């Protein structure tokens, strides 16, 4: 059986691996989004006491400063002492928490780029702080955030391939199966896998850019 027939026969398994990668990606981005947004809001508008701010700074420094492969091992083996965590959950958690650290900084810079006068004006009009953030600052910050967020999206797609070090069988691992069971063909199999990652990346980024265009206010800021 030549490698092309093997590739066609096993293509569904590559797609299955791609599916696992996509679920991992979506889950980690959601955790990162929710947590990252919360961190950003507390950093900017929360109490300014050290008790609140320092742990957030610590969190962000640690998760941005440690290689993801180490984080995967720590979450898989470390957490299992307390709770019997599955490899998939450990991967989502490790990568999601790390993404939160990055996303919090993306959001922070986006919020910071909204002129301070906007907030003052909103407060002067009688809006509460919460309302001003929600209706005045957030919509403008969201527009600024999409661009840098596409970077986070692209790099996280590629990082999902590391999850297999703790036994998550995603796209890269499925490709390994084909390579080892056929004793070679590294170049061809990885070329196909690279194409799949590229398509996923392009699709996601196109959607994000479409959203950016949709949210853009004509004649404003461009």
């Amino acid at each position, binding site marked *: 059986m030549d490698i092309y027939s093997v590739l066609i*026969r*096993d293509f*569904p*398994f590559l797609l*299955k691996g791609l599916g696992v990668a996509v679920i991992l990606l*979506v*889950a980690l981005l*959601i*955790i990162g*989004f*929710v947590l990252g*947004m919360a961190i950003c809001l507390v950093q900017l508008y929360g109490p300014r006491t050290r008790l609140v701010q320092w742990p957030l700074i610590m969190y962000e420094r640690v998760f941005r400063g440690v290689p993801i492969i180490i984080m995967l*091992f720590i979450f*898989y*083996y470390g957490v*299992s002492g307390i*709770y*019997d*965590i*599955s*490899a*998939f*959950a450990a991967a*989502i*958690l490790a990568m999601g928490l790390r993404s939160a650290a990055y996303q919090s900084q993306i959001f922070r810079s986006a919020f910071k780029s909204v002129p301070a006068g906007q907030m003052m004006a909103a407060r002067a009009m009688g809006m509460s702080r919460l309302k001003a953030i929600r*209706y005045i600052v*957030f*919509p403008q910050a*969201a527009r600024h955030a999409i661009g840098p967020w596409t970077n986070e999206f692209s790099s996280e797609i590629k990082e999902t391939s590391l999850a*297999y*070090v*703790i*036994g998550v*069988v995603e796209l890269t*691992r499925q490709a*390994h*199966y084909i*390579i*080892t*069971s056929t*004793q*070679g063909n*590294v170049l061809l199999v990885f070329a196909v896998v690279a194409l799949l990652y590229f398509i996923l990346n392009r699709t996601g980024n196109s959607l994000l850019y479409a959203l950016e265009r949709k*949210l853009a206010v004509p004649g404003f800021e461009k």
Partner: protein
Amino acid sequence: MKGMTSSLLRSASLAAVALVGSGLATTASAQDPYTVGVEASFPPWAYVESGEFKGIAIDAMNAIADEMGIEIEFQDMPFPSLIPALAAEKIDILATGLTVTEERSEAIDFTIPWWETNDVVLVPEDSEANVFTAVCCGARIGVQGGSSQQAWMEENVVNNDIDVELATYESYVTAVDDMAIGRISSVIVDDTSAQEYINAGKPIRMAGKIYIRAPLALAVSKGDPQDLLASLNQGITAIDESGQWQEIIEQYIPGITPPAIPGNMPDFVDTYNKPVAGLPELGNE
């Protein structure tokens, strides 16, 4: 804009809650099948073809599980992660082409050996190197990271001031391919795998053999917390006596005579001391 962002936020947080709820709650209970860790890119011991686990270790482990009357499920992991996973009890049994070494026996407990391998030095087909010139004098030698071949090379060659450089790979298949490109000059691999690569038509030849009589065995977590060792040992003997073992071997490595079971049992492994779990008549004094 208002409506869209708020609904986006709401659905994102809902999805996160749902994920945390479903994804994280995978606590194992006693009735669950035992998890057998394998490195599924290690033919002929374990590999995946068309989404199905195959190989000597897979088929033999299924036969042993039948003998023992237990349910098993396979979990693939890269080789360097398997022993830590077993030590941390993330998997219950390790079944792959696992070589018995002293260092490993301190972290995990081995069953009786079911195979014995020697290492070979692979060189490109057109290379003129022999077994000695292939592992000295500035040679760059490929091994799989964390493998017994790496340990052997470090102990016997690198630490003896012989001028070689070890290149570690995640898998032997990539090491052999890298040798074909010319990035490394030789690859040290066990004889069973080497025969596979040659049978598959790779442009390589064996420059020579290193007789190490390395036993291969299954393993369980240190101290045998699941109480599996005795029945695994009996299961190995049972499939050997029933002839199932020989059939499995013949299917994956045609023409080879399997070594006797149990194989060479080194003194340094404490589970090989008399009495061996499940097989009290065996063992070192």
